[in-house]
């Protein structure tokens, strides 16, 4: 079975380490915050200018001046700090964020990522995504492995305009956990009950398949 959104978030959360500063993108990455393992403290960075994002407010706590990068009302966690957009992106572009998790339309074997624009469709903008992929060392991309029509999104070369070039090393799809190294995908783990053959058939770019590919356990 392909991973659910929650399972994707749970698997990503296993990459968290105690003391990590983490930036979570909009969508599935946001769910990772719900699955931080016991005994681990992480601080969430929100690029509109908040380090130490807390949970959503109660009705009584709602404050229009307190939002996250998804423009949702939030609270500040204990020990949080609030700062300007320039300061926020100094953290991001300066490589101070330990882990960045974000979504994508396509990735390719060179570590390129396309995530912000589909020509001919609505043009919304890249927000902070280009800064995040260019600035972070440790990035996990979460995405579906193939389109609804079965077309692979893990490619030899991205077809959509890029968000960043040569910056992606780890991809978690609904089918597999994959690393990118020296111009090839490497299959590291597969979703429970998903065969290596299915993953290979849905991966257009070159992929190294080790003899043993462990199943993820949930």
């Amino acid at each position: 079975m392909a991973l659910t959104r929650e399972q994707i978030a749970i698997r990503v959360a296993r990459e968290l380490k105690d003391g990590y500063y983490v930036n979570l993108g909009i969508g599935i990455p946001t769910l990772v915050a719900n699955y931080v393992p016991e005994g681990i403290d992480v601080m969430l960075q929100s690029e509109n200018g908040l380090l130490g994002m807390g949970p959503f407010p109660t009705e009584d706590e709602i404050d229009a001046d307190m939002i996250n990068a998804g423009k949702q009302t939030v609270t500040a966690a204990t020990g949080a700090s609030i700062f300007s957009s320039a300061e926020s992106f100094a953290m991001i572009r300066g490589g101070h964020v330990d882990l960045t998790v974000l979504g994508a339309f396509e990735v390719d074997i060179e570590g390129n990522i396309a995530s912000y624009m589909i020509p001919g469709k609505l043009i919304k903008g890249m927000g902070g995504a280009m800064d995040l992929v260019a600035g972070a060392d440790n990035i996990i991309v979460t995405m579906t492995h193939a389109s609804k029509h079965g077309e692979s999104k893990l490619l030899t070369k991205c077809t959509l305009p890029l968000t960043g070039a040569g910056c992606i090393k780890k991809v978690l799809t609904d089918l597999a956990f994959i690393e990118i190294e020296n111009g090839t995908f490497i299959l590291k783990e597969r979703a429970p009950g998903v065969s290596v053959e299915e993953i290979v058939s849905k991966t257009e770019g070159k992929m190294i398949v080790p003899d043993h590919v462990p199943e993820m356990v949930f």
Partner: protein
Amino acid sequence: MAGFNKVVNSYEEAMAGLEDGMTVVAGGFGLCGIPENLINQIKTMGTKDLTIVSNNCGVDGFGLGVLLEDRQVKKMVSSYVGENALFMQQLLAGELEVVLTPQGTLAEKMRAGGAGIPAFFTATGYGTPVAEGKEVREFNGRKCILEESITGDFAIVKGWKADRYGNVIYRHTAQNFNPMAATAGKITVVEVEEIVEPGELDPAHIHTPGIYVNRVILGTFEKRIEQRTVRK
């Protein structure tokens, strides 16, 4: 010290001197920390052909979105414009130009502009459509593109409190782009929720020192919330 008194008493006075074709740098992220009354004043003035530098363009009927209604905006420099149907309509019809700019690059363009730095190199955007036509240089093995800084004829800023000398503090995440915008205007106008006497704000807690600020005005704010999310 009357020479340092930046307070003006009307929105007409606050935006006096704004002319067709000018560039306006605006603070705000989404609808948070936007100078909503200064924007409404620009709508009232009917100034046209404006270039607006702002992370977003408001929503339909609120924030910078209101300037689209009478086609006052010629060009937007923004990182994300996805919340606004009228914007998309004018963009697709070729009535509006947009320069999509990565959010960190946008913040840095304002910061650098205000700091007298004409351009800077950054890895952000290398290899993407943002890099088209821009000089590329390699630093420490990383390819970077040359980005030019931004200044405006006006900067419009939303603060929390200011003193009469134009020292400003911001509230929570309503800070966002406001401190950089404040430095980047030839004329910087700050609207705030409270004006206090000089000395009442702790000098060590000032976010925007008064040297950047030309005009301060007291406003009342709707503070619309874009995504009202609560926990049970």
